[in-house]
């Protein structure tokens, strides 16, 4: 089945997202960017181009480069807004036969929806390339203040682009959806959207899963671009004061200044002062001139204070229009890149006396919300399939009473895990599988779900038998545990019905208990693991000594035996550091046996059994490593 994409068709930039595997994500365009400029052009080579390419040639081809078409879509030519915008558009617009607007691009006149369709077509093609599949359906967002005609025209634009528009939704609603606020019945939400070129504020009310727009307002010509402009003007004025040079006529200098101002704005979001450093900004009579100035956050905030105040005044008015007071508002959602500016965030926070939502990238939150709406429309099947997670970890008891987890808590089920364990003593013919549930490190502190014995293991040295323990947790929380001796093929299993059916309070209690004991449990576990390790080393060392027999140098033999005693003496103590130290010493001493035997071999080439010796030593080493995961066994 094809996916339904969510498109935020913006005035300056657009973004597209899709729900994949239950989570929404932004789709990058072919240029590798997460947003696409909402610009279309007929290039000088007479090709139709959209997005970044259209933007790149805008300066040289202004009459045929169409931007901000969202300001025209679905409007009448006689509308006040259209007449206002007409004054500054570098391209030609005229009245259409039906009273709407027509835009000249190349030799043809286009309706605004045709221009929007060209942007949507690029978005569609890029999304298809990214997803590797055809995209036929979309959810498109529009400002909450769009009237029927503007909505219909946007929908038509989608259809012209070859998209079945499943739904047109409001931008603030999409933002609320992205934060999951549609589920909060009877809440009042303010969506504060400060973009690059426009400012919108909406008041929403959530009723039984329906989001209603109670009031909207804003300023279609107030945005972050104004901030950049203000920083720019300030810097130019300051430079003139300090250096006596007017940069306002130098296009290249202004361009470099603009980029530096934008960077400064971003930097001031996180630091309180930034340095604007532009070497060789102009060439004076006395040589090159540089631009070096510090800009503090306080100064920046002073520059934009009136814009911020204006946005708060508008917000206040819109809340009033909705018939509420600011105390009625339950949630505030921040949209648009400029809301990253701390001064804006703080002004909104201070006004409402509440923390606004801002976890999702404010440039992408509307597209994310649109994708979620698409996911809801697409996902009838998925709704049925609610996957559960196992609330507590599942495992078995291993050597020294440790609880070894096979399935960690919060694993999505169904799932299965298996691990190889071994025996703890020589010639052990059976092991007990003790199935545990819980987060504690020690088996005794966890809940026993069941236990069974696997017998008939062929007698062998400890650590040699391979016993595969498999946990299979099905979608209903039924746990099957099996243990299989790989050598004999013997298998035993148990089925435990109620592994997940525990009430929430119980699960919570167990989790808290585990957290409370985490530190001491960890210490206990470390100690036992060290003891297991020491035990394994003693075993290996004794084996090496006895295998070497009287060929071993008596001094080395005595020293190894001494170290063995030292470790064994600590077996009942709980001094972790002492055990670790004694173990290390024993390990180092045991390691000398191999080389000693080898040099003995070199001394006497006639000795036939040395080769065997070496191999057995190697086995001994791997044995001690494996002993960490050894199954606590009961001797038969």
């Amino acid at each position, binding site marked *: *089945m094809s996916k339904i994409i969510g498109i935020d068709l913006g005035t300056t930039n657009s973004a597209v997202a899709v729900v*994949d*595997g239950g989570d929404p994500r932004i789709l990058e365009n072919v*240029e*590798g960017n997460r947003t696409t400029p909402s610009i279309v052009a007929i*290039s*000088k*080579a007479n090709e139709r*181009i959209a997005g970044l*390419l*259209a*933007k*790149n*040639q*805008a*300066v*040289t*081809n202004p009459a045929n480069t169409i931007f901000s078409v969202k300001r025209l879509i679905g409007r009448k030519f006689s509308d006040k807004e259209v007449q206002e915008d007409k004054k500054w558009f570098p391209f030609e617009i005229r009245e259409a036969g039906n009273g709407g607007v027509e835009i000249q691009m190349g030799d043809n006149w286009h309706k605004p929806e045709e221009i929007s369709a060209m942007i949507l077509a690029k978005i569609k093609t890029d999304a298809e390339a990214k997803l590797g599949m055809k995209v036929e359906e979309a959810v498109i967002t529009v400002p909450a203040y769009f009237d029927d005609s503007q909505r219909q025209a946007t929908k038509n634009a989608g259809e012209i682009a070859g998209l079945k528009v499943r739904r047109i939704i409001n931008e603030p609603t999409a933002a609320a959806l992205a934060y999951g606020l549609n589920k909060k019945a009877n809440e009042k939400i303010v969506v504060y959207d400060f973009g690059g070129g426009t400012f919108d504020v909406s008041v929403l009310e959530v009723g039984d899963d329906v989001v209603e727009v109670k009031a909207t307002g804003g300023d279609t010509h107030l945005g972050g671009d104004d901030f950049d402009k203000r920083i720019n003007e300030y810097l130019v004025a300051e430079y003139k004061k300090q250096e006596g040079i007017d940069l306002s006529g130098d*296009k*290249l200098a202004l*361009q*470099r200044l603009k*980029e530096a101002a934008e960077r400064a704005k971003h930097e001031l979001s996180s630091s309180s002062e930034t340095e604007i450093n*532009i*070497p*060789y900004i102009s*060439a004076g009579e006395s*040589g*090159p001139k540089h631009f070096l100035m510090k800009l503090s956050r306080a100064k920046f905030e002073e520059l934009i204070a009136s814009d911020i105040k204006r946005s708060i005044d508008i917000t206040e008015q819109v809340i009033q229009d909705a018939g509420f007071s600011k105390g009625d508002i339950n949630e505030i959602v921040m949209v648009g890149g400029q809301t990253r500016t701390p001064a804006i965030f703080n002004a909104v926070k201070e006004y409402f006396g509440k923390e606004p939502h801002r976890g999702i990238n404010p440039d992408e939150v509307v597209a994310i919300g649109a994708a979620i709406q698409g996911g809801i429309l697409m996902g009838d*099947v*998925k709704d*049925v*399939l609610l996957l559960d997670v196992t609330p507590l970890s599942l495992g078995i008891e291993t050597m020294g009473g440790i609880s070894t987890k096979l399935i960690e808590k919060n694993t999505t089920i169904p799932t299965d895990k298996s691990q190889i364990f071994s025996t703890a003593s020589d010639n052990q013919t059976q092991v007990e599988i003790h199935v545990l549930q819980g987060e504690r490190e020690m088996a005794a502190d966890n809940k026993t779900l069941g236990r069974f014995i696997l017998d008939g293991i062929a007698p062998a040295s400890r650590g040699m038998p391979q016993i595969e323990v498999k946990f299979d947790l099905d979608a209903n929380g039924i746990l099957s545990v099996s243990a299989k001796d790989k050598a004999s093929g013997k298998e035993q299993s148990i089925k435990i019905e109620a592994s997940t059916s525990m009430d929430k309070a119980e699960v919570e209690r167990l989790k808290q208990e585990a957290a409370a004991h985490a530190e001491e449990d960890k210490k206990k576990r470390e100690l036992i693991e060290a003891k297991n390790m020491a035990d394994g080393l003693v075993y290996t060392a004794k084996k090496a000594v006895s295998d070497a027999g009287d060929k071993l140098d008596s001094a080395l033999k005595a020293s190894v035996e001494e170290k063995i005693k030292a470790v064994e003496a600590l077996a009942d103590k709980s001094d972790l550091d002492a055990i670790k130290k004694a173990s290390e010493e024993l390990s180092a001493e045991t390691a000398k046996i191999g080389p000693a035997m080898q040099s003995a071999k070199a001394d006497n080439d006639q000795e036939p059994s040395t080769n065997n010796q070496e191999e057995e030593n190697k086995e001994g080493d791997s044995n001690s490593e494996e002993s960490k995961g050894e199954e606590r066994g009961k001797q038969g």
Partner: protein
Amino acid sequence: MKEKDSDKEKKPEAQAEEYLAGWKRAKADLENYKKEETQRLDSVRKFACESLISEMLTVLDSFNFALTSSKDEDTKKGVLMIKSQLEEALKRSGLEKIEVKAGDKFDESLHEAMEGDGDKILEIVSEGYKLNGKLIRAARVRLGDSL
């Protein structure tokens, strides 16, 4: 009666279909996710340094300004060498300069027009760059009809 029976028989079948479809979809989702994850990791590896390199472009620009404004040949040579050190370092991370010279035809997929009319490049205002094949900054150019 018969009709009812067949209805009853159909129901579990339809349900089984639905489950199978859901299962297939889940499997497919996982497979696709894995493929995408590989691609994503690949692009993360390639472009992790993109923002750092983008900032370094400003430094490269400044070197160019220094070179064009400097009159002292000795200093000029030193600066040129430092610049090429930086360029080499960035090249090793996958940065590639866009080859463009005055007289070339304007191409919006590689160049950004700063001013002027026409489709001939008169002057390169600042160099453009690609990082591992992705355009991270178009070459800024001044345009005209003829040189």
